[in-house]
């Protein structure tokens, strides 16, 4: 197992607690008994490795999956996938999904009274390149109401699912947009105590990846759980 990663401890406060009463759905679904500390074996230090064959031609362009262009503000979302040591995570599968510009998901359980867009499915996939970079073209998702509390609205977000170097670096998260006034009110965003970690969830507007006359650029770098920095015997 010499080449397999040895994962470092998760820094305190950077991940949400399971129970967060402000987020109502966690109350009946969060475990109530203490978690049992699991030594890292082959099952945790390995994970599925996806290849280019799971990526379709239009998977990284959510605006090109139908006959016409979707409505909304066109955006290019890009960034680097790194570990805590700053090393690029290469060949990693990223899956994304999101609501359309009106704040409606193409999902039978989404009851929000906002129009569907026949030209937008809202899902994509990409593999990171040799420098850990990825890019999606999409439209900016709309905010939408949800039933968590009175007049509750989710800030605009894109869901991200990432497979890193092993099962322990598996990450499912959400990317938010800078300056969104709904962030301060959102119990899901606010479930993290470490302020720097919270800032990781917010993309930044990026003029360098903004294409003139075409699309606004947003940069979203993602940091996966890192390897143990403890010096090894050599």
């Amino acid at each position, binding site marked *: 197992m010499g080449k397999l990663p040895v994962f470092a401890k998760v820094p305190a406060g950077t991940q949400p607690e*399971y129970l967060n009463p402000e987020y109502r759905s966690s109350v009946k679904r969060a475990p109530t008994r203490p978690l049992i*500390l699991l030594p890292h074996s082959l099952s945790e230090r390995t994970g599925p*490795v996806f290849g280019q064959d799971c990526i379709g031609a239009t998977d990284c362009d959510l605006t090109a999956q139908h006959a016409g262009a979707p409505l909304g503000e066109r955006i290019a979302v890009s960034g680097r996938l790194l570990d805590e040591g700053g090393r690029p995570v290469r060949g990693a599968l990223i899956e994304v999904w999101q609501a359309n510009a009106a704040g409606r998901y193409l999902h039978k359980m989404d009851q929000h009274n906002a129009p569907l867009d026949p030209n937008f499915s809202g899902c994509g996939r990409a593999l990171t390149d040799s420098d850990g970079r990825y890019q999606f073209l999409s439209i900016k998702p709309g905010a939408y109401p949800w039933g968590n509390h009175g007049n509750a609205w989710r800030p605009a977000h894109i869901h991200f699912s990432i497979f890193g170097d092993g099962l322990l670096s598996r990450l499912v998260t959400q990317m938010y947009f800078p300056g969104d006034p709904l962030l301060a009110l959102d119990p899901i965003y606010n479930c993290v105590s470490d302020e720097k970690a919270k800032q990781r969830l917010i993309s930044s507007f990026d003029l360098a990846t903004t294409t003139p006359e075409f699309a606004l650029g947003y940069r979203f770098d993602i940091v996966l759980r890192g390897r143990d920095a403890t010096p090894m015997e050599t």
Partner: protein
Amino acid sequence: MSHVPTPSQTVGPFFSIGLSELCRERIECVPADGQRALIRGRVLDGDGEPVPDAVLEIWQASEASCGDLGPGTDARRGKIPDGFGRIATNERGEFQFSTIKPSARRDEDGLMHAPHLAVVLLMRGLLRHLLTRIYFAGEGTNGEDAVLQLVPAERRKTLLAAPSQENPRGLSWDIHLQGERETVFFEA
């Protein structure tokens, strides 16, 4: 460690838009010989109500899945890698999948690992995913397993897939998120 890790956020209720492309209920394994096991169960919340919007990711590690083989080798055939399965619960909170039962193995430190599957559990209401394991009831090496030893004896059965009346040709394994029979979840 110079970079703060990105926090987890819930998968939410609408994950099937993005995740169903890679759903698969038949887990292909290397080696492909051995006994096929059909595992069925339900995910239940703190009120005992079924969870219709959970997704399970099964990871069955083998020596062949060690990273040094890398992409494009025999460890991966077709678009979903061997040893991996992703299964969403239905409206009754039920899931099922089949796999080849893994072998017991002893690691380089001499520790015994009884046949098991790693399970990542995601759903609305979970701000970060849960990690658990499926072991096989009646397996001779369970008594020596390095991880089961760490679990209080009275809770070990929550990790065992076992034959049941409802599922005579397969194995049953339910996930109880809370309550008397709360499943053992791990931090790693």
